[in-house]
């Protein structure tokens, strides 16, 4: 599949300080997560791809166009939702999105149509005529998403989209992002500190540390593997009996609090045998799931490698 973004030895410096060190990666998924500790260079990478910082060496290609020589063309294909507040306080929602869409090249009438559509799509239909300065935090986030999609880009950069949102607004934002990903014609780069957001919305994950690529993995493949790791939550029964019984069957176990047990089924052992024990001891298995090598483990492993180099 043609790569959406190709990093080809991209290096960015501020003065003499290197921020990104010759990054090399080829990102092809529908939805790519960007993770990393503070100061790893995530925002700098996004800013460099948008053309806000000039690379000191190397380059990158988005949909095959070089960001150094075809910056303008690249930007016409991109929608950007910044992490910080970004709005014009005195303009109404529709008007500011229309302005931004026109600057991206849309003719005025089409821009107006699509501004309205974008507002309805993100759920702000009711408030689109109000000045953006009067919006609540959640509304401002949605308005940022609206301006990012109004001109019909092929690639969306979402920088901490759920920042500061309360739970219902978070759920709505995640749902919207998943909907956009599932369409297939709009690719996403999602940068977030919340691993769960990335887990729910992304197919591939790029992890940066100290300006280097610390890990790059495909979540889809990770999810398909590892049927032998289980997480269960028990209730009832006598303390420790259940645990002791399954250990006798040969499982390696680790307990969390409140009846939670992580275990590895040895080959040849079936889940039903766990249930046999539970039935015998009158223990409820309230939760049973196959643990995949979750993103948290991948992330922690990536952080441990000494110089963050892949």
């Amino acid at each position, binding site marked *: 599949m043609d790569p959406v973004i190709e990093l080809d030895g991209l290096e960015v410096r501020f003065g003499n300080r290197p921020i990104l060190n010759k990054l090399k990666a080829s990102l092809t998924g529908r939805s790519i997560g960007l993770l990393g*500790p503070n100061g790893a260079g995530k925002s700098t990478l996004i800013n460099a791809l948008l053309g806000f910082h000039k690379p000191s060496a190397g380059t990158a290609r988005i949909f095959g166009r070089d960001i150094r020589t075809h910056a303008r063309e690249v930007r016409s294909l991109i929608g950007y939702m910044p992490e910080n507040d970004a709005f014009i306080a005195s303009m109404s929602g529709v008007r500011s999105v229309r302005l931004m869409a026109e600057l991206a090249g849309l003719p005025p009438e089409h821009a107006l149509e699509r501004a309205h559509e974008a507002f309805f799509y993100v759920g702000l239909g009711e408030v689109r005529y109000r000045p953006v300065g009067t919006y609540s935090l959640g509304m401002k986030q949605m308005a940022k998403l609206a301006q990012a999609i109004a001109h019909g880009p092929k690639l969306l950069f979402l920088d901490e989209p759920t920042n500061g949102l309360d*739970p219902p607004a978070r759920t709505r934002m995640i749902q919207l992002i998943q909907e956009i990903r599932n369409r297939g014609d709009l690719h996403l780069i999602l940068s977030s500190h919340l691993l769960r957001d990335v887990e729910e919305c992304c197919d591939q994950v790029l992890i940066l540390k100290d300006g280097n690529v610390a890990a790059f993995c495909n979540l889809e493949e990770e999810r398909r593997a590892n049927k032998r790791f289980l997480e269960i939550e028990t209730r009832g029964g006598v303390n420790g009996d259940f645990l002791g019984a399954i250990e006798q069957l040969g499982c390696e176990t680790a307990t969390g609090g409140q009846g939670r047990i992580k275990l590895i089924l040895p080959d040849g052992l079936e889940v039903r045998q766990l249930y046999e024990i539970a039935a015998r001891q009158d223990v409820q298995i309230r939760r049973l799931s196959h643990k995949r090598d979750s993103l948290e483990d991948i992330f922690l492993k990536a952080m441990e490698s000494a110089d963050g180099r892949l």
Partner: protein
Amino acid sequence: MSDNLITFTNVSRFYGEVLGINNVSLSVPPGITSLVGPNGSGKTTLMNLMTGLIHPTEGEIRVLGIPPDHPERLCRVLGYCAQFDAFPKGITGYQFIYSFLRMYGKSDAECDQRTRASLEMVGLTQAADRPVAAYSKGMRQRVKLAQATAHNPRVVVLDEPLNGLDPLARSEAIAIFRQWGGEGRHVLVSSHILHEVDQISDQVILLSQGYVVAEGQIQGVRSEVKEQPMQIQVRCDKPSLLAARLFQQDHVVEAKLSPDGKGLLLRTRDADSFYLLLNRVILDSALEVESVAPADDDVNSVYHYLIGEGSSV
């Protein structure tokens, strides 16, 4: 007895006509308590009342027996980490913690030692002598945490402490909160990230539009929401068979087969009976179970039932 609790008795706080919180009564034990609610529901008001930054319009508050309008006693046992950054201009990380510690009247040597211990706990020892203004967002969050706890308070009030922290720093901070909770301190955390709230809290307080909607331990809260039967999701190879067996019971209210034919979403008024029944069905019918999960036994669902879509987008 009340020396161990933070109590609110019929507390109301209004800002002119605007409601902050209305007639709230709470009793917070030691351990990690999470404050959950939409923006504008009264979480920050509650925290400010607790720390004595504002006074209630009505009602009485006691923190470990101390009323908040006695800051000389209260501030020795309480530490507060606010949501928004507010630092004196030009100050370094070390100075920030040290100078506020000195206000407790401790000697220079002791303040120095406590400051360094605090900085080490949050991992800012190397950056301690740089100005806070040059810190990244995560570092600023950590220095605020360090400052709030440098004087070893028994009560720690944290307003969205994980905001802006990367996953590693998050789990480190959560480990610290767990440690404090285990030591018997009162740790009050407000957060929007409900799955984290689930993971770390011992109790939870749900607020909506200035009212306390629920409080207590999660499972306890959930079982109190009696209008909503428990939802459980089961993924297995013969869901219809399971459904048939379930409908023979009278505690099962609803069973919905999932579109891909490999799962069942059911609602029951008696979760305990269901689980024991499930054990037997699996053995009797040789059912192959892929996963079992309560679909609403967490803060997220309780939030959804009690608070719903909240006040605004």
